[in-house]
Structure formats: C-alpha cells, structure tokens
C-alpha cells in the first residue's frame, strides 16, 4: 500500500484541480485552475511511469494552452467593451 502512496496523492491533486477548473466560472481565473490541472496531470503521469506523456503535458499545459485561452478572453472582452461603448454613444 505504501508503494501506491505517490499515485494516490497525485490522483488527489488531479481531482482537486479538475473540480476547481469546472467550478471556476470566470475564464481568467479558470486559466490558473487549468494550469494547475496541467501540472497535477504531469505529476500523475510521472508517478504512473509515463515520462513521455508527462513531457507532452508539460509542454502543452504550462505555456501554450493558457496563452491561447488568455488571448481569446482578451479578444472577446475587447469586443464586448467596444460594443458597450457604441451603445452608450
């Protein structure tokens, strides 16, 4: 059982981060939960003896996905802001 302790811990981390990602409704705050999920997944893949998959997850999860989501949020917000301004005029 003690040998499985790292796996149980990593599963706990993934569960916490995954649940938090779904429950965080603001997209900007959700990005951080998503980044946390990426790190937790990478740790889980490492303890499941899958370094190749962990590398894949780290490469994608630390910079690429958050950057794309944040850029989308920025575009959508700018759009919403410019339209509100038009309505006020």
């Amino acid at each position, binding site marked *: 059982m003690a040998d499985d302790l790292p796996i149980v811990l990593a599963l706990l981390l*993934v569960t916490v981060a995954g*649940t938090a990602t779904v429950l965080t*409704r603001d997209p900007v705050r959700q990005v951080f939960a998503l980044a946390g999920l990426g790190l937790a997944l990478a740790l889980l893949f490492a303890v499941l003896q899958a370094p190749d998959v962990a590398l894949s997850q780290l490469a*994608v999860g630390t910079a690429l*996905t958050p950057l794309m989501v944040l850029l989308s949020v920025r*575009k*959508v917000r700018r759009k919403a802001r410019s339209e509100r301004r038009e309505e006020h005029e």
Partner: protein
Amino acid sequence: MSILPYLVAGWLFLAGCYGLATSRNLIHAVGSLAVCQASTYVLLLAVGYRRGGTAPVFSDIRPGSRPVVDPVVQALTLTDVVVGATLTALLLALVVQVSKRHGTVDPDELRELRG
C-alpha cells in the same frame, strides 16, 4: 485501490460534462472540455500501469532488468495530448468568431438570438 484511478477518471469526465452543460461562457465551456479530455488520459494510463514497473525507456536501464509498464497506452495518450491542444485552439477560434458575429459568448443569449 484496484479501481480508484478509474473512479477518478470517471469523476473528471462527469465533472467536465457538468461544467459544459451549465456553462454561461463558451470559453469556460472549452476549459471544461479540457477536463473531459484529461479524464481519458487518466483512464488510459491507469489501464496500462503495472505495480513496481518502470517506463519502457532503455536509455539508462538494461532491458529485462526491471518490469515495465504498458507502452501502447502511453503512445496513444502522448499524441492525443498535443493533438488535443490544437483542437482546443480550433474551439477557441470558433468562440472568437461567435463573439465577433453575435457580440456575446453566453450560450443562453445565443439561443435567444436565434429565436
């Protein structure tokens, strides 16, 4: 312990579905879908795990010296992680396009627009 990792995968999938169904923002929905994707990775790797095994990468160990985990599921998962990220990009591009066309990314408001 023998099905705990599978249950975690199932939980992630259900949580992601809940997030998708109750989302009020399409960007949040894409994030929830990423949780669903993660559940498939967890399930696949859990199926391939072997207690006491190590990765079948023989750059620093001698072949046959230690038991190894199943490499087939790892190969499936590793390509899917990167391909999944590009699919996330495609979905986000659709969200940006929806916001340009309709000025909102709330699925409920979008349905009202369609009438």
